[in-house]
C-alpha cells in the first residue's frame, strides 16, 4: 500500500523486461537477448530505442513518426505482425520475453529492417486514376459524399505493409510475381470503385494480379492498424466484380438487356 502511494505515474509498472531481438543481415541471423528497464506507458519501439542507445548502437530499425501514421516500424512482435510504435508493453505478457523480428514476407536487409521496395514496383503496374470528362466547364467534377464514402475508407491506408506480411500467399508461398497482395487489392478497389474513375482493372485483377489466390482468411483485416475492412470491403467486392465479368452469364445478360431497355 505504502509503495503504491509513493509510486509516480512515470514509474507505474516499472520493471526489467527481456527482449529477444532478431540480429543479422540478409536472411541470416539469430535472436539476441537484451534487458531493458520499462514502464507500462512504453511501446515496443521505446524499448528498442533504449536498447539501441544503451546496448546495441548498430541495431538497425526503421521508424519515423512514432504515432502510427507513417507505417515505417512494421515488425513481428511475439509472432504477430504489428507496428512497434503502437504496441504497448502493458498489452504483452510481462513474465515472458518479448520477441521482435523483421517482417517475413520481404527480403531481409539488417536486424529489424526489410526491403519493402517490391510493393512500390507493384503499385506502378496498376492502372492509374482515369477520371471521366469534367462535369463543369471550369474543368471540375461533381461528386456526392454518399459515393465517396466507400473509397474514403481505403484512403486511411498508411502503407505499413503488415497486411502483405501476414498474407500467407506472400509470406508462406512467396507468390510475389503473380499476386499483388491485400494492400494493392485495397488500392485497386479505391480506384475501381471511385465514382469518377472510368478504367476497368477487373481483367488484370483476375489474370495478372492473382485475386483468385486470396482464400479470404481475413488475416490482413486482423492486422490492419487503421482498421480498414480489407477483406469485406475491398477484396470480396473485387472478387464479386470478377464474377460479374467472368463467371455470371445470367447476370451479364440481365445487365445488357436492362441497358438496352434504358437506352
Amino acid at each position, binding site marked *: 500500500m505504502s509503495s503504491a502511494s509513493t509510486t509516480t505515474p512515470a514509474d507505474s509498472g516499472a520493471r526489467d523486461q527481456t527482449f529477444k531481438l532478431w540480429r543479422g543481415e540478409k*536472411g541470416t541471423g539469430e535472436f539476441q537477448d537484451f534487458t531493458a528497464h520499462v514502464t507500462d506507458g512504453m511501446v515496443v519501439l521505446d524499448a528498442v530505442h533504449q536498447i539501441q542507445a544503451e546496448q546495441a548502437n548498430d541495431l538497425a530499425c526503421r521508424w519515423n513518426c512514432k504515432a502510427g501514421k507513417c507505417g515505417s516500424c512494421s515488425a513481428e512482435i511475439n509472432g504477430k505482425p504489428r507496428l512497434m510504435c503502437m504496441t504497448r508493453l502493458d498489452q504483452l505478457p510481462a513474465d515472458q520475453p518479448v520477441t521482435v523480428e523483421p517482417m517475413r514476407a520481404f527480403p531481409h536487409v539488417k536486424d529489424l529492417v526489410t526491403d519493402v521496395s517490391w510493393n512500390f*514496383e507493384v503499385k506502378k503496374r496498376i492502372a492509374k486514376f482515369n477520371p471521366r470528362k469534367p462535369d463543369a466547364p471550369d474543368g471540375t467534377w461533381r461528386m456526392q459524399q454518399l459515393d465517396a464514402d466507400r473509397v474514403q475508407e481505403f484512403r486511411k491506408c498508411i502503407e505499413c505493409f503488415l497486411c502483405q506480411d501476414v498474407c500467407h500467399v506472400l509470406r508462406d508461398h*512467396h507468390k510475389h510475381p503473380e499476386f499483388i497482395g491485400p494492400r494493392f487489392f485495397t488500392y485497386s478497389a479505391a480506384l475501381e470503385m471511385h465514382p469518377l474513375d472510368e478504367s476497368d482493372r477487373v481483367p488484370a485483377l483476375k489474370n495478372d494480379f492473382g485475386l*483468385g489466390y486470396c*482464400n479470404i482468411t481475413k488475416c490482413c483485416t486482423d492486422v490492419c492498424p487503421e482498421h480498414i475492412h480489407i477483406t469485406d470491403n475491398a477484396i470480396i467486392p473485387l472478387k464479386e466484380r470478377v464474377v460479374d465479368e467472368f463467371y455470371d452469364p445470367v447476370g451479364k445478360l440481365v445487365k445488357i438487356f436492362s441497358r438496352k431497355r434504358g437506352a
Partner: protein
Amino acid sequence: MTHAQLPIQRRFGETLRRDAWWLPPLTVLAAFSAFLIYGTWSALTSGGYTFGPYFSPFHAPELWGPTEHAWFGPQPAWWPSFLFFPALLVLPFPGLFRFSCYYYRGAYYKGFWADPPACAVGEPRTTYRGERPFPNWLQNLHRYTMYVAVAFIGLLAIDAWKAFWFLDNGVENFGIGVGSLVMTANVTVTAAYTFGCHSLRHVIGGFKDRLSGQPVRAACYAGCSKLNERHGLYAKTSMGTMIFTDIYIRLCASGVITDWRIF
C-alpha cells in the same frame, strides 16, 4: 527483383505467437463437423421433425412426406422406401450456400485445410493454388446459391408464421408457444445471415460506383452492409438456432418435453 533472401517457410504449426491461436480453427472444425453430421442425420430420419404447427428447418420445405406440411402429398408409390429421404432433395441448396459463403470459406480453409491454420502460423503444404483451379473456382458461383437461399428464407418465414396457428378441437386458432418463438428466432437469425451475404450486397448495389440518386438501392445497400459487418456471427448463430429448433421439435414430438403454450 529477386526474393532469394526471403525467410524459409516455417514448418506446420511453427510460430512465435503466444496466444491460443489453435483454438479458433479447432472450434470451427468441431462446430462445422457437428452441424454437418447433425444436419445429415436429421435429414435421414423419417419422423419426429414435426410437432403440431412446428416444422424442422432441416426438412423445409417438405416436398413429399407423411405430414400435413408436404407440398405434393405422401411418398409416391414408385419411390422405394429405403431411398425415401425427401429432405436430401432440398438440404443441398442452403448447404451449398453456406459451403460457398465467403465467411465459411475463410473459416474452413483454416479449420479443415490448415491453409493457413491461423494467421502467421506455418502451413503443412508448400504448394498453393488458391481459388483459381477447378473445382475451387466454382466458389465464384456463390451468388446463384444466394438467390436460392433468399427464397428459402421466405419458406422458413412461412413455416414460422404457421407455427403461431394451433389446431384446438378442430379449429385453427392463433397462439404463441415456446416453439413458435424458437422458430421465429431461427428464421430471424438465418435471415440476418442471408441478407448480410457479400454476394447479395454486391448485386443489390455494390456493383455500382455511384448510388446517389437511387435512394431505395442506397438504403438496401446500407442495410445489407450493416448486416454484413456481423456476417460471421450470424452464420455461426444460425447454425446453432437451426440445430436447437430441430432438437426442440424432436423433444416435443417424442414427449420428452411439453411445449409450453404462452398464449
